[in-house]
């Protein structure tokens, strides 16, 4: 889990660098600071569970094992990307093979789609689960409420994971959210709901296991609200300052998910400072090689695009 979180952090930092150098164009939403959520949840899932991701999804893909090279190539719009470069950053984690059929660029819209995927599992009598990630902004959409209600009515195996990073773009949750808490909204639909500290990957992992146990027992969906924080802006263009108090940023930086796990492992005698350094050096070298290859690689053949619109072009 430590290595996965470090990979995501360093990958995203490299993406930001490439963005600033002009190699990455278009909307690019980074996962820096939220690593504990993706890694904690996805480690707890099984291989044939389905994941519905979002436009802030690089971390979900990497946590699931989508190769860094494919994700980076997608972000750069290259043919060797996960989606042949046709999706870009916001759809980069899509991997049908690894059970990520969708990363949506529309806030809240993946939630009902996960409900349908769960219907597929229930229909086949499988014990698998459809897990869906979304942010605090999504909980004010109609799609969220329709989907939670339907999943609860049909008792479907959905794991709802809200990554509450406190801001929808630059708008504080305090100014747009009514009610007690996000988790309480799920409870209103009779869905068992949990709150986890998103910076504590172990807590996220254990909470997910608890929620999954409930779901796999056939009682319908479960909901986890992970309180987390972007250490960066909404998009790569945004510094993330200005609309967020400095004390708040500093407070969350002190709860860096990678440091928190590393400290915990050190005090348990499972990790030395050199070990972490070694991982970081390895990942950096890996990224150097990948970046060089991806940057030079070509975009997909434009003339082949029409054949991807329909499965059987008429």
């Amino acid at each position, binding site marked *: 889990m430590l290595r996965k979180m470090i990979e995501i952090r360093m990958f995203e930092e490299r993406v930001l660098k490439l963005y600033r150098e002009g190699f990455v164009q278009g909307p690019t939403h980074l996962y820096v600071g939220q690593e504990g959520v993706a890694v904690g949840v996805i480690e707890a899932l099984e291989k044939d569970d389905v994941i519905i991701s979002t436009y802030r999804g690089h971390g979900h893909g990497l946590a699931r094992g989508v190769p860094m090279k494919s994700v980076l190539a997608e972000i750069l719009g290259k043919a060797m990307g*996960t989606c042949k470069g*046709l999706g870009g950053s916001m759809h980069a984690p899509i991997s*049908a093979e690894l059970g990520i059929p969708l990363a949506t660029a529309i806030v809240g*819209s993946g939630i009902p789609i996960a409900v*349908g995927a769960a219907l597929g599992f229930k229909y086949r009598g499988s014990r698998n689960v459809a897990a869906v990630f979304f942010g605090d902004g999504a909980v004010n959409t109609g799609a969220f409420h329709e989907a939670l209600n*339907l999943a609860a009515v049909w008792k479907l195996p959905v794991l709802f994971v809200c990554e509450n990073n406190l801001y929808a773009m630059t708008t504080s949750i305090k100014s747009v959210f009514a009610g007690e808490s996000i988790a309480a909204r799920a409870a209103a639909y009779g869905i068992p709901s949990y709150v986890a500290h998103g910076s504590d990957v172990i807590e996220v992992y254990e909470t997910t296991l608890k929620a999954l146990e409930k779901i796999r027992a056939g009682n319908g969906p479960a909901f986890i609200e992970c309180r987390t924080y972007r250490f960066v802006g909404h998009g790569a263009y945004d510094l993330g300052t200005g609309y967020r108090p400095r004390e708040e940023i500093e407070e969350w930086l002190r709860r860096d998910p990678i440091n928190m796990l590393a400290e915990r492992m050190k005090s348990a005698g499972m990790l030395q400072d050199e070990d972490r350094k070694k991982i970081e050096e390895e990942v950096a070298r890996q990224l150097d090689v990948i970046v060089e290859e991806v940057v030079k690689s070509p975009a997909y053949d434009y003339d082949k695009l029409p054949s991807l619109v329909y499965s059987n072009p008429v």
Partner: protein
Amino acid sequence: MAVRELTYVEALNEGIREEMRRDERVIVFGEEVAASGGVYKVTKDLLKEFGPRRVLDTPISEIAIVGAAIGAALNGLRPVAEIMFFDFVGIAFDQLVTHASKMRFMSGGQVKLPLVVRTQYSLGRAYGSQHTQFLAASFMQAPGLKIVAPATPKDAKGLIKSAIRDDDPVLFIESGALYVNRNYYGYRGPVPEEEYLIPIGKADVKREGDDVTVVAVSRVVSEAMVAAERLAENGVKAEVIDLRTIMPMDYQTIIQSVRKTNRLIVAEDSVKTGGLSAEVASHVCEYAFDYLEAPIIRLNSPPMPAPQSPELERRYMVTADKIVDAATRLVK
């Protein structure tokens, strides 16, 4: 081939039923579709035959209905979701247009979405501005989606079966007027006993003629057939083309006919501005201009919402009278 008469509704019901018998992965859900058998009985008795695992009533949640259809299609099922009125599809526009139609393309071809969203529009039934509109043209801006709109029982059955077997998302538009109005040509008609499919993407020449081509779709095909009969009495031979599939459109059949008749009327239930007829007419102008001997006439609803008053609605709609008038003017 043995043939019997079925209504439009019965033919649709039979088509869905046959596909559910044939393929365990086909499921049906939507508002009122299970216990009540559908407001218009298109899904009548499916619950009885296939049980609550395969035929499900939903809450009034159009976003979740289409979203769940997408998710189910991603995960091995072949869902047939119903949205009660075409107007309500607007609530799920994001799911249908921004998700279903694009997901195959934007994933680089990784996923397929074998789903059908069935809906109906009720122009001609005095349902008022919000339960009436034929919105097909709006969805033509969503390549990746297939759009089908049958005009007869035979086509309805053959096309719903093809739509269910198709690996792409299909918006299947039915006509509420054809559900209920016995006077329409498309209300009841011959349907083969044997199994058959009608291919998506193929228009159909419903009546042959050399003098003028009338391109129509859905409810308006019934109006065009009446008009063609009356025109024949006056010595004008109209060729009626039923589009059947709106997207991808069968331009070839249209152009072939225009080459023969040199005159074109496009008659359909969109509002005229930016409607389906605009696409057909501009395509013919672009690719078959030299064959035209007269300007194209488009017959549509005027650019205003539908009035509820049956008397006013009749004036608002394309009718056989209007088609006869237009054709008479064209051949003069």
